[in-house]
């Protein structure tokens, strides 16, 4: 185990929509499906509430990966919320890739309230990928480093 990922633990911020993915996270909890403790979940009413500023703010403050979970398109509690998320995040992630930021630091995943297992496996997979990328050097703000 190289020194890098033994001591280095990625910090992952997950924005979960209250109606589906947050409930999916709870279901993963009640089914005791483990995923890394580095993932911290912020509850938002809908995935369309997440502003690109929040994602850049997370990276600025030291996050290594940001994942945004929402209801499956068509299932949004507010009918069209995740359609806008899909467009906004497609464009934002494409721009971040254009600026040379590693693609795997950001991700959108649709998780319904009934998909506890999918939530846990997504978090495990995402945490592993972000850990393999190492600390976030390209979107960090030196003033926020310890």
């Amino acid at each position, binding site marked *: 185990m190289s020194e890098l990922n033994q001591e280095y633990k990625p910090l992952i911020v997950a924005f979960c929509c209250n109606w589906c993915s947050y409930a999916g996270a709870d279901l993963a909890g009640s089914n005791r499906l483990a995923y890394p403790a580095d993932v911290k979940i912020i509850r938002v009413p809908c995935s369309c509430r997440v502003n690109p500023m929040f994602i850049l703010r997370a990276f600025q*403050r*030291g996050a290594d990966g940001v994942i945004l979970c929402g209801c499956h398109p068509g299932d949004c509690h507010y009918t069209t919320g995740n359609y806008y998320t899909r467009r906004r995040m497609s464009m934002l992630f494409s721009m971040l890739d254009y600026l040379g930021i590693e693609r795997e630091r950001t991700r959108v995943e649709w998780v319904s309230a009934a998909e506890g297992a999918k939530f846990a496996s997504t978090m495990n997979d995402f945490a592993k990928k972000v850990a393999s990328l190492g600390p976030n050097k390209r979107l960090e703000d030196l*003033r*926020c*480093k*310890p």
Partner: protein
Amino acid sequence: MLKCNLSQLDNLFAAVAEAMPLYLPTQGKNGANYTKWQAGAVWSNTCNTQKGPKDLFFPQSEDLMAFKTQGKTIEIIDTRNEAEDFAVFGVRACDVKSLEILDRVFLSEPKDSYYASRREHGIIISLACNRPTENCFCGSFGIDASSPNGDVTCWLTEDALYLRGNTEKGEKFMALAAPFVTECDDTAAEAQKEKIQKIMARLPLADLKTDAFGGGKTEEFFNSPQWAKLSESCLGCGTCTFVCPTCQCYDIRDYKTNDGVVRYRCWDSCMYSEFTRMAHGNNRNSQKERFRQRFMHKLVYFPENNDGVFSCVGCGRCLAKCPISMNIVKVMKALEGEQNG
């Protein structure tokens, strides 16, 4: 007077860079800018730098102090680090004067210690201006581009660089340059001076006069109807203030970091709507007032408080960079025209 053949110049730079960081203009994507010298750097002496040497003495953003918060306890950390000696080569006469103007602001009581430590350790090697641009009008402010001040003054001819030490800081630089220079008389330098003075006379803005301005002219210009016309298309962006070598306004702000707060100062622009916003609001809340404040400060308020020294050095950067080409020359001509037109 000392002479250094152009072929020797790179070795001179290398020697100086050995002893202390040396900043000199190098050609960037958008014109020359002061960059730290390292082996292989090519000195660009064609025209003035896009941004003045002010950045090396009064950087755009500078940490003043930091606070570490642990739960409810706060610890104050002084982030200041004393500047070491460094040299700035190729400074034009207008930029040298701009530093003198900044000195009046920062070095008068209460002294600004951050600026002072850099100013003391900075050695200014000025260069007479062989090719001023059409935007230059330093002559109008009594600046002689052919023999600038500074710790060391240089003149550049086709084959050699002529150096003259003026201050003991300059002598320190001359000592480093000693192996590459030889004694010589002033004739070549004097010849270069005349050439420059001839060109300065031919500049399009050479005949711009400043006697209509200066201290005590506030009543005369404050309510001039010209301000509305001049400022109507100003965007209120900060370009003119951020490229100007003499602008000295800054804002002090706190940035909440992960484990505390960093208190820093950064350039501010009187053109911004947020500039000097006070508890009761903002006394200049239309672009016309902000526009007037900028040029009245340069041409009237500063000379009034600084025994007649104007806060503009005629470097022409605001003429080149303003998105809508509105600048101090047009303002002066408009106000002057109104006065005797």
